[in-house]
């Protein structure tokens, strides 16, 4: 029997649509190194836009089915890989974070909703999926990343740059690394901006697929500096379900909208609590507040995370829960949210900023 041509294979694969990007996987350039042997063996590389792709397995079986159904095909080999694409075609090569493909901010507006816990576990989940990940703790006054990652060490210097600290497979930098101990950082606003800029310019982040940035609460200096200094791919907003938290989260989201930073979506933390003695599910801070707010604002709802003792214990002992207890409900929620964030981030790499010419 005659074997199919490469074009026939590509036509079959073009029936697979990327649900987030809304286009077929062939025109998105995801199919590479296609070979068809005279014995009817078809092999190709399926290059995803993120290793944390939520539809990775579905794509693989859809590709095998679509090609396998072609007449003359005896075997199909699909090699799944991922290559994170840079967020924007920047107008000029930038000295700020030159090797970083995607920058994802985690913000909340309100304090105490678990922003740092979410940022640490989001970064750890992306890193576990195979991406190279950095985590920048931009909370100058209340840095929590050194404690949550068990990395209370001073960064080394090389070639006039600070080297990020490596822990749990991620690159980390926090003001808590630079100013350890119990002495507070007492800074006025403009100094906060300078300190955050320094952590981006003076730290040798190297090549990263994702840089997750843990923002301090509020809609002031830190967020503004960040939104002005780097073209952020997007921002994920964390809140707890009750009204007082969602109201402030909405303000944070609207601030980023004004600065043309895409909201990747809302994350609901402390969403429910399963009592270890009675097994009853309690909704201490109410439930569904973030999902409702996301609907009203027209942004994606990225997922809900339970209130679990394990998440708190692991944060205090310095290992993110997605690494220490991957089977827990909390860890699974973080992994699912990370793949949603990665998918939303990939959409941004197909967007372009306006092109400016001066003459």
């Amino acid at each position, binding site marked *: 029997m005659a074997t199919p041509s490469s074009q026939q294979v590509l036509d079959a694969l073009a029936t697979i649509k990327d649900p987030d990007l809304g286009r077929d996987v062939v025109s998105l350039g995801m199919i590479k190194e296609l070979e068809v042997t005279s014995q009817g063996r078809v092999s190709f590389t399926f290059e995803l836009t993120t290793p944390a792709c939520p539809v990775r397995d579905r794509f693989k079986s859809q590709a095998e089915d679509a090609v396998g159904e072609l007449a003359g095909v005896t075997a199909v080999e699909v090699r799944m890989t991922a290559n994170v694409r840079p967020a*924007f075609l*920047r*107008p*000029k090569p930038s000295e700020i974070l030159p090797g970083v493909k995607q920058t994802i901010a985690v913000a909340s507006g309100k304090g105490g909703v678990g922003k740092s816990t979410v940022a640490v576990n989001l970064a750890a989940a992306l890193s576990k999926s195979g991406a190279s990940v950095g985590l920048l703790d931009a909370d100058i006054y209340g840095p929590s990343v050194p404690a949550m990652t068990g990395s209370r060490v001073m960064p080394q210097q090389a070639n006039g740059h600070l080297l990020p600290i490596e822990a749990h497979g991620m690159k980390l930098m926090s003001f808590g690394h630079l100013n350890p101990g119990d002495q507070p950082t007492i800074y006025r606003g403009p100094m906060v901006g300078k300190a955050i800029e320094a952590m981006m310019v003076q730290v040798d982040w190297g090549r990263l697929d994702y840089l997750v940035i843990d923002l301090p609460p509020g809609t002031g200096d830190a967020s503004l500096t960040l*939104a*002005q*200094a*780097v*073209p*952020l791919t997007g921002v994920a907003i964390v809140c707890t379900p009750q009204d007082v938290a969602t109201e402030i989260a909405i303000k944070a989201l609207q601030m980023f909208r*004004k*600065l*043309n*930073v895409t909201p990747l979506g809302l994350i609901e933390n402390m969403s429910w609590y399963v009592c270890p003695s009675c097994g009853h599910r309690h909704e201490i801070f109410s439930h569904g507040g973030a999902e409702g707010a996301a609907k009203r604002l027209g942004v994606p709802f990225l997922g809900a995370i339970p209130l679990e003792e394990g998440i708190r214990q692991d944060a205090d002992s310095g290992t993110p829960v997605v690494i220490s207890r991957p089977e827990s409900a909390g860890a699974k929620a973080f992994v699912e949210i990370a793949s949603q964030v990665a998918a939303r981030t990939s959409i941004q790499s197909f*967007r*372009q*900023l*306006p*092109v*400016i*010419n*001066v*003459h």
Partner: protein
Amino acid sequence: MEITWEDGARGEYTGEQLRWACPCAECRGEAGAPGRLSRVKTLQDDELKIRDVTLVGQYALQIAFESGHATGIYTFSLLRRLMQ
């Protein structure tokens, strides 16, 4: 200066037009006090010539003029409105 927008639309801007539209506090005035642009009728040549344009985050351009004036942050929505 020329901008090609995400939707393909193109806008042309002169240094003079942009200088008079400068949104900074010194030019527009703040807290009820009138700004410089409402007090002067004419501007010098070097005030109208663009020297450099830098991207601010992904929401605005900072435009520097030959006179050294560079405090205006022109948001993309302002630039789009100026295009008419």
